[in-house]
């Protein structure tokens, strides 16, 4: 009927990419306008590390930790906390709020699908999580003389896996919560058990046997062990990587299954 000009297939694709970039740029500006959220993502984990590092006992070699100092094993813990904050705390209230207040619907009436808003949020929170991790590692190295991860590619791999697990958890919370307030509440409820699993209160490697086994079956417990191993130069156990990856797959599938645009 109406024959398309030859360029018709490429032009919309380019236009769509430009539109998605515009959405990402606007969301990035908005992200920087949330001081509360920025504090929890970027400042809280390094601050926690700094406070722990001020305790003299944390800077002394401990026999329980195979000749490491507590501060050495708390770097991976704070790295993970930053990743958990972006997924469980920062992202769900934003996405749920966008749905609750009709922002996703409004975007559905434009040539850009509301999925552009979700992917922008994932990208921004992902980047923020990685920056937070970088800050914790740098602080550990510069101030507390913590060795940089010896098995760097593995460390990065675990970091990305844990980030994926955290964002998929965030997506599932966004799918379940009806309101932004609701999302914050669910986020907080899951936040503390996750913190426990990273070994914040008791390093995973010093946990009693049964407890350690349970914790290592959780996405961030397994990631904590894997980061530990990569930090000291070993290739992390496939079982730990597998646990985090499996959780990511399950959480993502559940989020896709239950997510509603309105």
């Amino acid at each position, binding site marked *: 009927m109406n024959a398309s000009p030859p360029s018709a297939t490429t*032009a*919309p694709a380019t*236009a769509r990419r*430009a*539109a998605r*970039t*515009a*959405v990402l740029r*606007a969301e990035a*500006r*908005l992200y920087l*306008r*949330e001081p509360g959220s920025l504090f929890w993502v970027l400042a809280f984990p390094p601050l926690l590390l700094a406070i722990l590092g001020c305790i003299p006992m944390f800077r002394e070699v401990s026999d329980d930790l195979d000749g490491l100092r507590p501060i050495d094993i708390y770097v991976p813990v704070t790295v993970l906390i930053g990743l958990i904050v972006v997924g469980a705390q920062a992202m769900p209230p934003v996405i749920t709020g*966008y749905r609750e*207040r*009709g*922002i996703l*619907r*409004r975007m*559905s*009436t*434009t*040539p*850009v699908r509301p999925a552009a808003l979700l992917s922008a949020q994932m990208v921004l929170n992902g980047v923020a999580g990685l920056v937070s991790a970088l800050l914790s590692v740098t602080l550990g190295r510069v101030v507390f003389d913590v060795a940089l991860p010896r098995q760097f590619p593995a460390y990065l791999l675990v970091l990305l896996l844990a980030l994926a697990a955290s964002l998929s958890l965030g997506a599932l919370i966004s799918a379940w919560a009806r309101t932004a307030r609701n999302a914050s509440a669910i986020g907080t409820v899951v936040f503390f058990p996750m913190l426990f699993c990273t070994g914040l209160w008791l390093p995973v490697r010093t946990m009693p046997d049964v407890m350690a086994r349970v914790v290592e079956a959780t996405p961030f417990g397994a990631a904590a062990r894997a980061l530990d191993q990569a930090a000291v130069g070993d290739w992390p156990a496939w079982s730990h990587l597998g646990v985090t990856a499996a959780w990511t797959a399950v959480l993502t599938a559940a989020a896709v299954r239950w997510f509603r645009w309105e």
Partner: protein
Amino acid sequence: MTLASGSAAVHGAVVEVSEMRKSYGGRDVVDGISFAVEEGEIFGILGPNGAGKTTTVECVEGLRVPDGGRVRVAGLDPVADHDEVTRVLGAQLQESELQAKLTVREALELYSALYPHPLDWRPLAERLGLTGRLTTRFGRLSGGQKQRLFIALALIGNPRVVVLDELTTGLDPRARRDTWELIEDVRAGGVTVLLVTHFMEEAQRLCDRIALIDNGRVTALDTPRGLIARLARSTVISFTPSVPLDDEELSALPALASVERREGRITLGGTDETVNAVISLLARRRITAHQLRVSDATLDDAFLDLTGTP
């Protein structure tokens, strides 16, 4: 091509809805609605709360999938051809917001970037009186300013049709009048307007044609004048006679639809014919009519009559 004669009546239609149905939980919210909006007209959808107005336009916008019937926007299916429809149709939704910390300028820039051939947002912002508010965040705008921003966003993609849902709800009378002028401007610029409202004054002032919707069906589709003319009492005459008039004299008046007496004042409902007869009756009997008022029935009256709401 041979079928063209059958659809000739809606040849210039930009929006076509025929026999559309949508139900939620077994309740038919839209129960076989049909109408066609011609290019360049302001078409109103009027009806009581819960009549199915918003659901109808949401199907036109492609936000909802109708259970049955056919919807076309510029010949496209809003569900199957959603992407193309979003390029020709601009929407202002009921109860939607923007990100609270997004400024007016950022919102205008963002939404222009979403369309292939957007309008320049600066003159648009100026026409909508938003120029002084460009650095204000959405969350700090007044209700009227938010509405004007949403109108700007509905127009920014340079659409052929705009759908405006409950546009002036929450605006003060002044802002409402300004908005009406704006919509007339928009139409003068060649854009077709589909307007959902429950304000009679708004519909009467703006719309070329109105579809009156009640209980998910179109109960009347006509010009505002045409709807009023359907009333048995399209004209209302009221006066206080110097000498009492008895019922017998009044009931002899032609085309009389209603008689009401209150503290010596008589109010009659009828047509122009009734008016002429009343005047000659008064002249014949040499009765002085104090405070004689003749007024046309309003769309309000037509609405109440046609929707059967008391």
